[in-house]
């Protein structure tokens, strides 16, 4: 929506000004992982939010018959676990590093405290989450439509 202007590539912090972005970066930590590392499994309880800084993460889910279904790839500056931060749901998929990956991890308790104390920042973060979830839903829907047509 045309409420805010994108200030940076990071999909979570994209609408924040420099002062606001610093507040989030102060509570974040960096996690570096080699290829083939499982970040979390489908069904895990996760609350923290991650941003891929470099590398790629493959998402998949097991069907009831045990077949692994690919759900796409998360690229640099995109979010992981946004849905688990928003709602108390278990992980909807398994996430495995497809290369060397650097993640920005934002612990949910600190993040919620920062959001609660800053209305303007909170609105911009929620708008960024709107965008990210809409894009992810569209990607899945496109895979679904393609599946139905082939």
């Amino acid at each position, binding site marked *: *929506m*045309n409420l805010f202007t994108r200030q940076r590539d990071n999909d979570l912090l994209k609408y924040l000004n420099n002062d606001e972005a610093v507040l989030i970066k102060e509570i974040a930590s960096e996690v570096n992982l080699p290829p083939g590392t499982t970040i979390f499994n489908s069904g895990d309880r996760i609350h923290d939010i991650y941003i891929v800084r470099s590398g790629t993460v493959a998402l998949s889910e097991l069907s009831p018959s045990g077949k692994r279904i690919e759900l796409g790839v998360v690229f640099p500056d995109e979010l992981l676990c946004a849905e688990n931060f928003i709602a108390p*749901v278990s992980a909807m998929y398994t996430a495995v590093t497809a290369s060397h990956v650097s993640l920005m991890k934002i612990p949910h308790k600190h993040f919620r405290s920062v959001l609660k104390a800053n209305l303007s920042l*909170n609105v911009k973060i*929620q708008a960024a989450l709107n965008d990210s979830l809409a*894009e992810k839903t569209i990607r899945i829907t496109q*895979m*679904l439509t393609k599946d139905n047509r082939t």
Partner: protein
Amino acid sequence: MNRDDLHHTATLFRKLDQEQLGALIQVARETSYKSDTVIMRYGDRDRDIIVILEGAVSVEIPTGDNQYLQVARLGQYETIGEMNFILPLRRTAQIKAIQDVSCLVFDYYGLCDFFRKNPEIALKVFEAINVSMVEKLGRSIDHLVETSSVAG
């Protein structure tokens, strides 16, 4: 329109108090469509949000040769068009009234202007959209896993 019902059941409004809901509804216009009328056309560029007050609609995707396949049915207090409100996309489905429908239409630009002036309400609506989107994403993943499993 029963505002109490709207407050408790419409996805978009579920976090608003009565006063905030009253202010937001001032932005909308109430309109109606006869059964079998196309409310939104596939490929349109408008970004309005519609909340159904009464009646039901069919969500349909094109299958070629001017034919459409119903993929969902939406009824009272359900919301149409939040995806296009968020992202500047063309409409990805056709919405057709399958009963006489009355609804609230939130004009995109009017709503953006309202949210700029009312950040507390914007916050609650965006949070509600996020929860709704998580639910939608979960359903889509389940559906994809199910269909891929059957296809493979």
